[in-house]
């Protein structure tokens, strides 16, 4: 690029601070949060570590949705990515005998990204309700296929045994905690990577796409490329979340790709907002807590509590929980 003015010279002090402080602070906060959760998990009851494991797995799917929301589109079919990641991990585990939890989680993400790649350029042409409906349609086609395929367990799905980690079997007493640790570490790493990505030049252009696609093209940027990349990254996050969920649950079934599952991920993404990556996991944990307690105490109306909570957030925090500690679109 031919610069109008030389990019050399001493940048203003403000400029130097902008780039360094933001990432250094984010990494420090992320590592501190991860360490605190690891320590807290050791003393926490099993039901709570399981709940947070599921919140981390589901939060990863919603993190991908947030990446797309920053570009102005909301997918209603990320359950498909969850299912692809989950089924891939489960099949690799059962059929190929590869049982490493980290490898399965990464493999789930890669599989979902590979499946999403051919659809991404097509979906990148659509916006608004059309994008949402197309992603929903894809997820429901996947759901239908999974229901009909007996080799994948049909509507009942199938079970997955306890995984290993780095070649070691997980002891009975601590298996849940180790999976919890893995989920928390992966969620932290993905959150930090997401933050770096959101703050990058590509991340800023994604924000610009949401506001004014025409100008992005007239500035020489590619809107379709930005949306394609975001969709594939969201698929990776979804697939990884699916694999982690399967390992924690020990079971997979077609409901992973059902539209109500996709709706929950959108719910979490809206609840968290698109400014803060940490807020996505906070929102995911809130959903799991509300779901668990509501189904225990008023099983037939827990969706009502969830709906009221979402209404409250939309009314008073239209930019999500993250807006409580994030000031502007790019801060």
């Amino acid at each position: 690029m031919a610069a109008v003015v030389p990019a050399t010279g001493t940048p203003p002090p403000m400029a130097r601070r902008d780039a360094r402080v933001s990432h250094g602070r984010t990494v420090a906060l992320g590592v501190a949060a991860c360490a605190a959760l690891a320590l807290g998990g050791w003393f926490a009851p099993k039901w709570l570590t399981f709940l947070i494991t599921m919140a981390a797995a589901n939060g990863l799917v919603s993190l991908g949705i947030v990446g797309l929301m920053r570009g102005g589109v909301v997918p209603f079919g990320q359950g498909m990515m969850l299912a692809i990641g989950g089924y891939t991990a489960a099949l690799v585990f059962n059929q190929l005998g590869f049982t490493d939890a980290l490898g399965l989680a990464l493999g789930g993400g890669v599989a979902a990204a590979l499946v999403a790649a051919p659809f991404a350029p097509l979906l990148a042409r659509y916006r608004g309700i059309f994008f949402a409906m197309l992603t929903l349609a894809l997820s429901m086609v996947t759901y239908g296929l999974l229901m009909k395929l007996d080799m994948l367990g049909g509507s009942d799905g199938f079970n997955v045994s306890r995984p290993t980690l780095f070649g070691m079997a997980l002891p009975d007493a601590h298996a849940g905690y180790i999976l919890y640790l893995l989920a928390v570490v992966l969620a932290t790493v993905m959150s930090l990577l997401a933050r770096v990505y959101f703050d990058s030049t590509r991340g800023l252009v994604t924000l610009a796409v949401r506001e004014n696609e025409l100008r992005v093209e007239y500035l020489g940027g590619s809107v379709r490329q930005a949306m394609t990349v975001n969709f594939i990254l969201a698929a990776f996050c979804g697939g990884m979340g699916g694999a982690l969920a399967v390992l924690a649950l020990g079971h997979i079934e077609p409901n992973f790709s059902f539209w109500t599952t996709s709706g929950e991920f959108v719910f979490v993404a809206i609840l968290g907002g698109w400014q803060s990556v940490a807020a996505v996991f906070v929102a995911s944990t809130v959903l799991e807590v509300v779901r668990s307690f509501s189904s225990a105490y008023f099983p037939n109306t827990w969706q009502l509590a969830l709906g009221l909570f979402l209404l409250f957030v939309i009314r008073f925090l239209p930019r999500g929980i993250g807006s409580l500690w994030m000031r502007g679109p790019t801060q």
Partner: protein
Amino acid sequence: MDAGADAVSFVLEAKGLQKRFGAVVAAADIDIGITAGERVSLIGSNGAGKTTFVNMITGYLKPDEGRITLSGRDITRLDPRAITRLGVARSFQIPQLYGDLTVLDNMLVATACHAQRLSFWQPARRPGAIAQADALLERFRLVEHRERRVAELPGGVRKLLDIAMALTAAPKLLLLDEPTSGVSAEEKFPMMDTIMAALGQEKGTTVLFVEHDMDIVERHADRVIAFYAGRIIADDVPAVALAADDVRRYVTGELLQE
């Protein structure tokens, strides 16, 4: 002079451009050659074909017939992004900005978009990009607004930012679509002076600007191209073009229409 020699000598050349929207003729036999460094004003009443011409150059509209070349390269069928990457930038009559972002972030979006390859990890707010953005903001006297959200800014400031963003890639050809429209009469001249002073620091950038204020045209243009009903009715230095009967009749309204 043969066609090949013409193509080399002009930064922008349009030959035989035709564009119709149903029964409306938006461009008819448009032949224009613009040389490097010229400041050209496009004038004409509403619907005369100025913006259609700008939109055809920037790839937003495709001509029904004719050919457009940029430094000898055919750009007639290219899309806006490809044309931008070849060195054509534009501002808009209604500024096309990112209202939810700050002024600085708008500039950084422009810088990022011009990059050959977008980075997944290089911070948008990195010192080099910020220094470049600050230098342009300084030239357009926008530094005081640097951290303000664009949605909060007055119209004139938005116009300046719109143009500053177009300049981030040091274009060969800059098209300004009514840079002073929507700005109060007393602000127009200082604003256009700011724009032209900022553009004056660009080496070799050719500028085409659509303008309705003839005082501004006389003051800032080297050449005037007047449009009427999709045709060019005058193409000369301002003193001559603005004095032409057709221009006085159809553009400035100084002569009663026959």
